[in-house]
């Protein structure tokens, strides 16, 4: 047991500041435990989101010493003895209070993403899919919607005006999931991603992948394959030439 110094951002849309707390830290604790202790003993109205405390629900996203992460997965032994730990809210979304931000941007983008569209002629119980065919999509379905990727992506983090045209990594892996789903019947997902969701804004600098607590290969397995699918459709000169010659619109199998 030792006493550590925490700096926690407190405030709301009107403004705020980093408030210092000296707080007891026990062996094996995570940042969220310490936040809870501050809440229980020093600041009962300290606003923080959390749920499962086991890295499964994605509620307790914040920035710890400037790095976006789940506070329930940020073990205290990551920090040096005597190091001040600074905890701030996610910096890409509007502030509500203290460590809580308004993440509705992400829900809105999800709502603008066309849903799974199953084949009309298959009744429930008749679905047959091979494991190898669902595995790629299953990786993306590990997403716990912590929105750390959305928060870290510089496209919107540093450029508020891009929130309109850009849907973000979370949405891109959702689109990839559906585009790779063995039974999804929509054929316009690549166009929607490129034209309406701002896939082209991504410059694959991979911060989304770096902060993903589920270790989803957001860029390599989701965004880049989507970019490649779009490229195959629109920019590949050989495909273009092939179409000219054979006059056939080859898409996916």
């Amino acid at each position, binding site marked *: 047991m030792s006493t550590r110094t925490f700096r926690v951002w407190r405030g709301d849309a009107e403004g705020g500041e980093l408030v210092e707390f000296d707080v007891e830290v026990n062996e094996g604790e995570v940042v969220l435990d310490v936040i809870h202790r501050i809440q229980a003993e020093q600041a009962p109205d300290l606003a923080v989101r959390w749920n499962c405390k086991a890295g499964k629900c994605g509620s307790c996203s914040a920035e710890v010493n400037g790095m976006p992460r789940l506070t329930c997965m940020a073990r205290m032994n990551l920090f040096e003895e005597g190091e001040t730990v600074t905890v701030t809210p996610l910096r890409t979304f509007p502030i509500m209070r203290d460590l809580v931000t308004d993440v509705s941007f992400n829900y809105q983008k999800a709502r603008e993403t066309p849903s799974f569209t199953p084949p009309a002629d298959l009744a429930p119980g008749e679905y047959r899919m091979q494991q*190898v065919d669902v595995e790629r999509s299953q990786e993306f379905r590990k997403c716990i919607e912590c929105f750390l990727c959305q928060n870290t992506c*510089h496209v919107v983090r540093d450029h508020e005006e891009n929130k309109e045209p850009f849907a973000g990594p979370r949405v891109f892996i959702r689109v990839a999931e559906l585009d790779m789903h063995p039974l999804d019947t929509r054929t316009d997902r690549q166009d929607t991603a490129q034209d309406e969701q701002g896939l*082209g804004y991504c410059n694959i600098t991979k911060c989304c992948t*770096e902060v993903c607590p589920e270790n989803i290969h957001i860029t390599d397995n989701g965004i880049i394959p989507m970019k490649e699918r779009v490229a195959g459709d629109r920019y590949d000169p050989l495909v273009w030439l092939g179409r000219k010659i054979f006059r056939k619109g080859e898409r996916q199998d």
Partner: protein
Amino acid sequence: MSTTDDTSVSAPPRAAIEARTLRTDNWMRVPVLTVLGLTAWVAYATFRVFYQGNYWVADYHYLTPFYSPCFSVGCVPESAHFGRFLPDHPLLPYAALSLPFLLAFRLTCYYYRKAYYRSFWLSPPACAVPDGHAKYTGETRLPLIGQNLHRYFFYVALLITLVNTYDAILAFQSPAGFGFGLGNLVLLGNVALLWCYTFGCHSCRHVMGGKLRHFSKHPVRYRLWTIASVLNNRHMMWAWITLGSLMLTDFYVMAVSAGWISDLRFIN
């Protein structure tokens, strides 16, 4: 590394946190190393492709990849496996038909894009560190929309890698006929690494099977996709290793050709 004041990260409606980044670790290290590494390589490569000498070891048929395929009428005849038709001009590299494509292949490579966007362009320099630019449109318009041509450059790079492989096989030579020396290992090693980089390319992965919706209906392509995926997982590593191996191979050929060292021979 400076950043502009135009980032949204501290502006309303977001939390009014003064510091642009609160990262306490040494986040500048990687972009700085990247700049140093890429600059050094480009400097060396530029020097070598315009040097127009010491690219061929006549005794053992070692040809450096920087001069393959050698199309200039200035090329040593034996080194030009596919004919000589380009004019010999000091500003025209001997392998002027392949080098631009190799350059474009690497420039549009998904890994190198990350590397130079982060380090040279600061967009962003590191995660949760503000973008160095006030406006950002990514790869949505010219010229960066051209990054989508990566696939095309990949196809050409694939051909060039075949040529490099051919070069490496032809190099089992000595004045006495068949020969085998350390240079062969260098050339072969380089080619093997180039395959790891090229076959693990994101575009290759797409072409092999990434575009399919049902792997189960295409077992062979699934197998190829799986191999490409395994290599792709370490694409950054292959990207750097092949820069090193290209430079090393070229330097070895140059050193033997210039007579600074003599090739260690195992057979003839």
